């Protein structure tokens, strides 16, 4: 990587730029499917959430779920995108065992949401990624090949679940940007409540378009599409491997074929799925079972008025109002749950301490235990109490860490811990002076050394005084009184 953090792949005096565009498939958060009333709940027994419509029985007709439409509009607004007042559902025709209708209802020519943008916070500043479009479509079912040795089994629970396909412009230039882009997209949708972004459950997956070109060139190279990658890590691995494959071809003077590829996570390489010649002819045409979708300005306005504060705006507010650094603000707003937790804590406590404690101790615990902040073992209320104990001098920051460790076990109240364990800080100047006198008496040789110029020994006296106080002495007070005694 070069100094200005540009991502370039080097080959003997040549530098290649990697061009990436993502088609993200985000499952719409909704009770029921896009065109039927079946539940969308994850993890149910196979084929228990399938209506006659989902299984494409004869004479069954799709009926649009208005809530999914509103979710798509909401997401569009979150992406600062144009909401198209008229859009059309098309049929994408192909045969597969887990596609009961023999076509997927999708939006082709006229998507519900047009151009928008996503702002990325990169280490060297902000970068805008263009959104080409967002459209609604049905998910397919799931083919299971590894249960029965002779047959493929099909689970239609997912069949008909609403997906938003969010297509970016080819504006991404590195695996890092892809990481930040996906996280930002996920964050925006989680703020909006339109997609839970759960990659393990397949709520968020992406087709990755990759091409390469020599640095400085303006034309795009031939791209390849890597289908259905379901984690950020795999997306990054796939991009690096695919970009290098393409560069190797160019270096050998060969041409890149436009094709669809699959990423083999075990071998860390992409392989051809089908070439352009073999590309499906999906025979898109407007679904005659559904009227064109018309959205009123009133509905758009109503949804707009319900849009919560989004990460970019929240970040700005945190910086302006709480004087946080952009870095701190970015971390705190990255997830709606985190920012809610933060705001809950600072309702009754110091902002600076809260920021440090959340991004420091709390995050460390969450990481260690692999928990989401929503599962935090310490509640915002109790963390807030702990911070107040530090702030009013009842306990020292060091003691607070001990208290915090105990709080983790069942979200205990820090006040009770401090009381029961007698951890209250000693802030009586007389008591402090007494124990300092003791330290000075017991270390007369060190005092002499200090007075003859060995300033470094000051820390030693602080340590001894702290030890004498069994860790409860107010550090500021110890410092102050020690200085008076030794220098006086």
């Amino acid at each position, binding site marked *: 990587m070069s100094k200005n953090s540009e991502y370039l792949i080097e080959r003997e005096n040549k530098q290649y730029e990697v061009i990436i565009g993502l088609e993200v498939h985000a499952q719409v958060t909704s009770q029921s499917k896009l065109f039927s009333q079946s539940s969308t709940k994850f993890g149910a027994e196979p084929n228990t959430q399938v209506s*006659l419509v989902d*299984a*494409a*029985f*004869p*004479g*069954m*007709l*799709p*009926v*649009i779920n208005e809530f999914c439409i509103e979710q798509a509009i909401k997401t569009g607004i979150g992406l600062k995108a144009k909401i198209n007042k008229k859009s059309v559902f098309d*049929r994408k*025709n192909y*045969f*597969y*065992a887990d596609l*009961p*209708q*023999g*076509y997927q209802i999708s939006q082709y020519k006229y998507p519900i949401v047009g151009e928008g943008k996503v702002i990325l916070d990169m280490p060297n500043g902000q970068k805008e990624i263009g959104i080409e479009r967002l459209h609604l479509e049905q998910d397919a079912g799931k083919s299971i090949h590894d249960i029965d040795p002779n047959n*493929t089994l*099909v689970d239609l629970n997912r069949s008909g679940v609403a997906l938003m396909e969010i297509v970016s412009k080819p504006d991404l230039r590195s695996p890092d940007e892809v990481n930040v882009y996906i996280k930002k997209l996920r964050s925006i949708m989680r703020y909006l409540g339109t997609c839970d972004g759960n990659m393990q459950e397949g709520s968020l997956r992406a087709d990755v378009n990759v091409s390469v070109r020599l640095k400085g060139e303006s034309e795009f190279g031939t791209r390849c599409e890597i289908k259905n990658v379901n984690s950020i890590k795999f997306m990054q691995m796939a991009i690096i491997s695919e970009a290098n494959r393409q560069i190797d071809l160019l270096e050998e003077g060969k041409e890149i074929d436009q094709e669809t590829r699959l990423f083999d996570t075990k071998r860390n390489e992409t392989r051809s799925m089908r070439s352009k010649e073999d590309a499906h*002819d999906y*025979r*898109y*045409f407007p679904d*005659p*079972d*559904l*009227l064109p979708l018309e959205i009123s300005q009133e509905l758009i306005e109503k949804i707009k008025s319900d849009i919560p504060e989004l990460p970019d705006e929240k970040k700005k507010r945190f910086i302006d109002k709480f004087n946080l650094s952009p870095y701190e603000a970015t971390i705190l707003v990255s997830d709606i749950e985190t920012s809610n937790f933060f705001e809950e804590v600072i309702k009754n406590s110091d902002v600076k301490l809260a920021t440090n404690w959340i991004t420091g101790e709390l995050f460390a615990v969450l990481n260690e235990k692999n928990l989401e902040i929503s599962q935090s073992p310490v509640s915002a209320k109790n963390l807030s109490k702990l911070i107040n104990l530090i702030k009013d001098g009842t306990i020292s920051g060091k003691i607070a860490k001990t208290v915090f460790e105990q709080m983790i076990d069942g979200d205990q109240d820090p006040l009770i811990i401090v009381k029961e364990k007698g951890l209250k800080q000693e802030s009586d100047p007389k008591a402090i002076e007494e124990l300092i006198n003791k330290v000075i008496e017991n270390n007369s040789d060190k005092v002499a050394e200090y007075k003859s110029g060995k300033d470094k020994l000051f820390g030693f006296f602080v340590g001894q005084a702290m030890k004498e106080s069994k860790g409860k002495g107010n550090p500021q007070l110890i410092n102050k009184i020690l200085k008076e005694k030794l220098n006086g």
Partner: protein
Amino acid sequence: MSDITSQSLFELTSNIKEKKLSSEEITKAFINRAEKSKKLNVYVTDNFEKAIDQSKKFDSNPNLDFKLPGIPIAVKDLFCTNGVRTTAGSKILNNFVPTYESTVTQNLWSQGAILLGKLNCDEFAMGSSNETSFFGNVQNPVGENLVPGGSSGGSSAAVAANLTPVTIGTDTGGSIRQPASFTGTVGLKPTYGSCSRYGIVAFASSLDQAGPMTKNVRDCSILLEVISSFDQKDSTSIDYKRNYYSKELSKDIKGKKIGIPKEYRVDNMPEEIEQLWKNGISYAKDCGAEIIDISLPHTNYALPTYYIVAPAEASSNLARYDGVKYGFRSPGQNLIEMYEKTRSEGFGDEVKRRIMIGTYVLSSGYYDAYYLKAQKVRQLIKKDFDDAFSKVDAILTPSTPSSAFKIGEKTNDPVSMYLNDIFTVPINLAGLPGISIPAGKDKNNYPLGLQVIGKPFDEQNILNISYALEDKINFKNDISDWWLSE
């Protein structure tokens, strides 16, 4: 009292309400006649035992407020019926028993009707002669070895042969009106959006409409009243105030402006059809209607447009019959082979032909030239009618360019078969209501029909015009019961 099975729906309903007949008597009469009419091959699946049980149940506690009190009715086998096999005339659904009921048939049962059975039809409603059915062709009761029209051929034959008092069919390009015309019966295709498509095996979604097929116009108005309803389960269903069609039925059409489109005088149209049309015009004048010459300039393009749009939608609608979930499956070594064998063996030739046409016209590189252009022409055809309806209240045309033809006469010539739909197809493309009423006979004494086309949602008007014409025409179907066996 005349023979039970020859009575109209209106008569049967009156007799039940006046307790002159029981539902059981009526139901058994139709079943007895059906047992002796197997030669016509109208039934794919009968429901006779259950129908008798239900008629007894009705009689034990009759609700006479119903519009179809204890009336047994057989329906086209394109309507899904809960617990009763529904085949769409295809091998691929030979074993298919729905667990749900179409909205239109549900509307029948909710008004007291009883299911007699499922009537033969062209496979997936693709045909004009009922010869594409997997369950064999249907005989037209008008004459031996004559087709009953299609695709609702079993339905038209059953009404004409007094095997059901009334029935319902579906009409995508003429599948109600053409068979009605061929059998001397009345058939109405309502405005697109009038009758729910929920639970009807789809052929071409933007064209399909269910409608009544009856012996006379009054019965037609009663049945339309029952089956037409707004349905949230069909996104193309339209929520509008429906008329009380049977109550508002009137022969007074004085001052109504009736348009005669010059483009419907097609080349080589038989003299008899020309004469039929002239007679219709003079009857309309007799009723006090005003006749106005109009032009529907894009009429010539309707048939080619239809044979792009309908197969395109069908090719996609029929993709679900793949052997995976229900219906016929022919096993294969892998998924592709299973698909190929299932669909090759499960579909008949006409269905395959249309799937191939439809797949072709939607293919990349051909889409713009065929499908997109067809959609544009469809708009022009619709506009023709809009313009015409700014001048007239209804349009009068022949229903078909010929009377019923012989079984096998056109099976090897799809294009000449398609030409049968020339007068009915534009109405589907424009989404308008159209009705065919029997209006005369040709030299062989085979029935011929006239079609009355209306503005959207103006079924009442075309019913009234038909009602008035019916009275003047005084058509009598000449059916000899030649097929009856003992």
